[in-house]
């Protein structure tokens, strides 16, 4: 009975998602050929049900479920809802893949739901075993999802993803094994208790460094970053949208929860993370500056954005966490809008190189205006939410002290380079060309997602006060 109480109090969204995994697999056995179009509706239903059930979850005070292997509090609930919103958009825009997969549409959604389940488990995992299992689960489901298309690039991207994921999880395990040895426990709460009064040692520092480096794979930051553009290039568009948000959000949730425990005992960890973040931004900016392919460009842009979010993790105060959460919200909507815009373009003419965007400004001014807003938001220019988000994250570093000003300066200059790279697609859209492009108007869902999220990027900047308060509330609950 305790089991059922735990499920009811903390695990309702996950259980619903898991149920829909089985429903999808079951349906794929019997209703393949005829009813493939309903699969999208079933997926939407599943996500909406799961989202609604978040309201029934106990968030305050923290609920320890399943012998403390998983927890549920405001922080995890926030991340779960971010994951569900992102995957909702990803399901909405995946009508093309449903049509193409036909008989296997249900299986595609089963894998997608597995990934959502894994991300939600990763958010709420409370010991090394459950976090490792969900880490692997997320990596495997994302890898399988990115290899779904039947061409070579998808397989190659999936393979690269798998190699990186497996190496990362090996590093994660190796690092956590030492922490287990030092503290004698694998549970986060127990570790926190047994670390009280701990002086810190070389072994602890190195092992936590290993764990952090392994987590960098999930948030697509510097040591494990080469896979990002390749995987995005290979994967289909909805999968790319999913990959660019959900694993990163889940990774940040786990990273912040681990960092809260260990960062007090390893004083240099903050500096290391800030340096990694700056290197990530530099890598992403350098890669995106010479990109000719829009998908790969989106990959590098994701790297830049996650670098900025990682910058806030190096500080780890409630203020900086609130900044990171606000950045995550902005990044969610902006990135969804970017991918939705790319999907609209791709679905109408089947091209994804940057040159094909030439002259778009003269034929589709409305689309171009929205796209400019999205890119400006990613670059962090007003009047979009990206500006405020960058302001937040950078001000968190400014708050630290005078010694950190050099990092702040480097971050600001890298931000200036980032502006440069986001101007490139805009420049191409305004170039003159003879051929006329027309976006087909049948793509209702993509259109809705694109314009809705673009509007949100601007509105989030204006009505930011409430959201900032909300983010601070969540950050304090960690």
């Amino acid at each position, binding site marked *: 009975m305790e089991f059922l109480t735990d499920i009811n109090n903390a695990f309702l969204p996950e259980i619903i998602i898991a149920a829909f995994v089985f429903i999808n697999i079951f349906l794929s056995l019997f209703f393949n050929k005829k009813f493939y179009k309903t699969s999208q509706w079933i997926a939407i239903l599943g996500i909406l049900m799961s989202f609604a059930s978040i309201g029934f979850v106990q968030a305050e005070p923290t609920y320890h479920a399943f012998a403390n292997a998983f927890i549920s509090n405001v922080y995890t609930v926030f991340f779960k809802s971010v994951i569900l919103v992102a995957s909702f958009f990803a399901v909405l825009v995946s009508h093309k893949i449903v049509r193409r997969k036909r008989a296997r549409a249900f299986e595609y959604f089963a894998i997608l739901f597995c990934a959502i389940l894994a991300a939600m488990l990763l958010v709420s995992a409370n010991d090394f075993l459950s976090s490792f299992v969900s880490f692997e689960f997320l990596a495997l489901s994302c890898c399988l999802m990115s290899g779904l298309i039947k061409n070579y690039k998808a397989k190659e991207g999936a393979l690269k993803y798998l190699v990186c994921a497996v190496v990362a999880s090996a590093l994660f395990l190796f690092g956590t094994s030492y922490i287990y040895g030092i503290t004698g426990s694998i549970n986060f709460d127990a570790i926190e208790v047994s670390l009280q009064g701990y002086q810190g040692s070389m072994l602890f520092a190195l092992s936590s460094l290993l764990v952090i480096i392994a987590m960098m794979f999930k948030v697509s930051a510097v040591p494990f970053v080469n896979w990002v553009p390749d995987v995005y290039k290979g994967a289909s568009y909805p999968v790319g949208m999913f990959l660019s948000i959900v694993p990163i959000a889940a990774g940040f949730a786990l990273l912040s929860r681990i960092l809260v425990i260990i960062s007090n005992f390893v004083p240099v960890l903050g500096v290391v993370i800030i340096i990694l973040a700056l290197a990530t931004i530099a890598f992403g900016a350098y890669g995106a500056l010479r990109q000719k392919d829009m998908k790969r460009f989106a990959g590098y842009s994701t790297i830049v954005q996650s670098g900025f979010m990682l910058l806030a993790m190096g500080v780890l105060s409630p203020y900086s966490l609130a900044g990171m959460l606000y950045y995550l919200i902005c990044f969610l909507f902006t990135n969804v809008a970017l991918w939705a815009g790319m999907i609209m373009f791709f679905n109408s003419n089947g091209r994804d190189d940057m040159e094909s965007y030439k002259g778009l*400004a*003269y034929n589709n*001014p*409305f689309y171009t*205006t929205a796209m*400019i807003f999205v890119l*400006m938001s990613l670059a962090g*220019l*007003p*009047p979009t939410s990206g*500006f*405020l988000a960058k*302001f937040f994250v*950078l*001000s968190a570093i*400014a*708050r630290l002290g*005078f010694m950190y*000003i050099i990092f*702040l*300066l480097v971050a*600001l*200059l890298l*931000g*200036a380079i980032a*502006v*440069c790279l986001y*101007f490139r697609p805009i*420049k191409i859209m*305004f170039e003159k060309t003879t051929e006329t492009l027309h976006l087909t108007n049948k793509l209702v869902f993509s259109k809705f997602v694109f314009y809705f999220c673009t509007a949100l990027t601007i509105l989030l900047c*204006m*009505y*930011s*006060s*409430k959201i*900032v*308060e909300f983010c*601070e509330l969540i950050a304090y609950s960690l």
Partner: protein
Amino acid sequence: MNILSILALIFSPAIAALLILSPVFPNNEIKIRRFAKTFGILHFIYSMLFLLFFNPTNFGWSYQKELTFLNTSWLKTLGVTATFGMDGISLVFVLLTSFLIMIALVASKSMIRTKHRIYYSLVLVLETAFLGVFCAKDIFLFLLFWELQLIPIYFLVSQWGDKTSSYSAMKYVVYTFVASMFMFLGMLVLYFYSFSISGVLTGDIESLSMSESVFALWFQAFIFFCLLLGFAVKIPIIPFHTAVAKAQVEAVTPVSMLMAGVLPVIGEYGIIRFNMGLFPEVFNYFAPILIIFGVVNIIYGACLALAQTDIKKITAYAGFVQTGFALIGLGALTELGFNGAVFQLVIAGLIISGLFMVTGVVYLRTKTREVSALGGLSQVMPICMCLGFIICFGAVGVPFTAGFIAKFMNLSGLILSDIEPQKFIVSMAVVSAIGLVLNACYILYLFHKTFFGSVLSQFKAESVQYDEDGNEITVVYPKRGITKSEIIVLSLLGIAIILFGIFPNALLDIFQVTSDVILDFMKV
């Protein structure tokens, strides 16, 4: 007073821009142009109303108003509010901006041939960004509008400029953005350290100015120079000028008018508002640096201008010289100098945009900007010559034009300055007086080479106009080589220059009290 909403003043151009962009608006270039022009004129009249009801003896900010969203401040938890307000100096610059935008919208008729819809909406968005900078009462609001300018300027320069203008627009954006990142750094540090001292998170300029003096001097100086770098690229002060000059030269004429007319004003407004208003102690210490920058701007800018053969480049460098005089006035730390600097900024905005307009008119007719390929245009386009004559005299600083008053105030302010050592001041004054002569040289050279001398054969036709591909179109203009809208633009600028030359107090009275307040603050 209810009609005079500062929010309406600032955001109405953006709303008008959205209206033009919206699918409801007819896609007819004449209608778009007329709408934009009418809006510009109405906006100028509306801003004149602000002047009428302005109380010049008021010390603080007038017309203060906060923009709220759902009855909540913009970023309440961070202490950042979207509060707007005006004091005397802001009001003068707001009027200047509104006037120049109106002028530029009128001037666009003959200069802009394509993409009218996007062009006019971008100019109006740019106006919102300009006005927001002048009226922002919060440092982060200031920053928001400051960076908002980049987007319209990028498109205005790259889309309607010369062939390589896309590159120079990008260069301009990167330069300005990098500099503004330093400014952002300074602002963030300022914001958090004033928080650590006063315990209140606030971005309000007035509250920040209270808590500054507690900092160590070197720390204040660090923030001071971070901010100054951001403003210096916008003005531009000379070592940072390359990208700005290139963008100004390669942009289309109305855009160069706006860039040369308003952007230096914005930069120096930033210096007045932040560097002077927040760090009086440091400013007192580093004022000679501003004087040196000003003198370098004058001498080096004049030399650069003398070395050019492109009339638009000469005009762009002339703009640097004009802003150099204002920098001298700011650095002098006297009442005369300060008032002169503000006066000079307004007048420089008028003069430089006028000069750009003249070169633009000439370039439109002749399709060349090389000095050697021009000459004798006074016979072909006499009206343009007459109006250009007034503007050039204003730039040289001939008595009875506003340029004379402004330069006189700045230089005498510099000489009256009590900055030690006195030798430095005197030598700087002498050098800038030499700069005045050089200034006269290149402007008269420009004017002479363009309008006088023997008429070159290709300009002998009654009035010649070329279309975009360089083919001759035989359009006979009624007013000898110049259209009605161009006459309006040039004559309005000329009238303004002469009017302020005869009645400088009309302008000086508006910001007299504000400048007294700022200078009093400096002496503490």
